[in-house]
């Protein structure tokens, strides 16, 4: 009975260790994937790239006379 228990415990430890290593590998892979995606996102979000694409589509930056600011403060009584 005791022998069976010791064997079972060792098998469980063995399984956990194997699982631990698998999870470590998975974590490393997910980290790598995450970094790859973050890098790609940052490249695609680059202002210079977007401005280039916008200019290519015929868009131009609005001039100072083409936008206005609203004053949301209450007017003095």
């Amino acid at each position, binding site marked *: 009975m005791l022998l069976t228990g010791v064997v079972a415990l060792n098998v469980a430890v*063995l399984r956990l260790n194997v699982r631990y*290593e698998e999870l470590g590998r998975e974590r490393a892979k997910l980290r790598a994937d995450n970094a790859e995606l973050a890098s790609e996102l940052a490249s695609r979000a*680059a202002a210079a790239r977007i401005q280039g694409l916008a200019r290519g589509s015929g868009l131009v930056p609005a001039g100072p006379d083409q936008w206005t600011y609203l004053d949301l403060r209450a007017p003095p009584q």
Partner: protein
Amino acid sequence: MKLANRRIRLLLVSFAFAFAAMFLRAAWLQGVRAQDFDRLAQGQHEATVVDPAARGTIYDRSGVQLAIGRQATTVYANPREIDDPRAVALAVAKTLRIAPEPLVALLADRSRGFVHIARKADPKRAKLLEEQQLPGLGFVPEEQRVYPQGRVAAQVLGYAGTDNRGLAGLELALDRTLRGRAGRETVVRDPSGRAIEVLSSTAAEQGQDVYLTLDHTLQANAEAVLHATVQRWDAKAASAVVLDPRTGGILAMAVERGYDANRFPIVPRDYQRNRAVTDTYEPGSTFKVVTVSAALSERLVTPQTEFTLPYEIHVADRVIHDAHERGTERMTVDEIISQSSNVGTITLAQLLGESRLSEWMQRFGFGRKTGVDYPGETRGIVPPLARWSGSTIGTMPIGHGVAVTPVQMAAAYAAVANDGVWLRPHLVDRVGSNERVPVASRRILSRGVAQQVMAMMRDVVVEGTGTAAALPGYQVAGKTGTAAKPDPDGGYSKTRYVASFVGVVPATDPRLVVLVTVDEPASAIWGGVVAAPAFAEIARFGLQYLEIPPDAPTTMR
């Protein structure tokens, strides 16, 4: 019977010898060689795995990644396990898209058991190569530093080398913060290489992320404007600094010509310099603000004090004149600045005297490092008072015989814009989740004098030498500068100039200080012509991007 007894005794002796030999062998193995075999066994089933620390990411102020770690695969080989080096080399070269000839020689050299085939290769291509199961090849994942914004802020960021160590720029300055510490794990492996027991484990400490004050959009725009400026005026180089005068935070620090940080090994060293911090220039007239601020602070003059000023003035052995020929005129201090009069500024400096002028230059931070968090900052060149000649009082007040860095000059103007309080210019906003470190500050001008100087600089743009810096809807304060470059064999060049403009917007509630310097423009030389329009472009974009409301809506076209 006797014969049988002899045989039995012989057998006994043989057994005794055999047992003795086995006993000795066992004692030899378990006693003398035990440690060696134990080590050998451990080597076969134990392994220490290094868990490399990921290098921290560098973000701009809006949270966009400027430098990030990406997984790459390093491919290596053991030439002793390769029977046909040529075939393997061709397969590797085709898959990784590298030249095959050096590989053939590398793989044919059986004197070595380990050679690098490609450090930090494209992981997708490395995977394809791994699937071919060529003999003698090995694959190790490694982190590779990439700069997703390409050219944006390349000189500021610097780069990390093959071993992921910072080699230049902020990557170098912040290396210890970004690098982290690798972890280690000792495991027992089964014959198939799977870990079945973890003997010891030290977790890796990942590198800390760093958040900059830079804004990648403002930075990209400043670089684009500088690029166009260099092209337009056929200049050698240009640099720009955009500062928030309320915090000292640097929003953009651009240098043209730039380069793609991902291609740093093949970029000339000259392009890699962050000229805004490491290079000095003679500021010329932008320096006059120091002289005038000093004269106002010492209560020697007011903005309305008038002087009768000839076209030229004798100082020791030199004759110094204004930039444009004119007769003798009466000018106020305000007009001295707006018209950028050399003679007027020198007259003010003579009122101040050498000692006080020297003190005020130091007070503005010239001749010493600003403390900007970037490696290789130079302190500039401000000769000590003991080494001044008779003519120094005629050259230094107008920005000649003195050399400053763009970041020093931008910080000085930011102090004027910040009601006289100088703040240490900085690029790093915070590290990880740590709180911001308070920025060093000191008052260099009274609020009243700072406001008087701002008013004078507004006139420079309204009616003086800097009208090209005007922006519809906003009040702009600024100062132009045009300085001949020193010749290597003494004296000043007649063809090589530095044109500059430093401006503050909106002048009534300063949010941006923009400095532009253009090195050796060929088709025009004046700061008001070459640098002021670049300032206007950068400031116009910045004001709109940061949603800063106009302070002079009536001037809107």
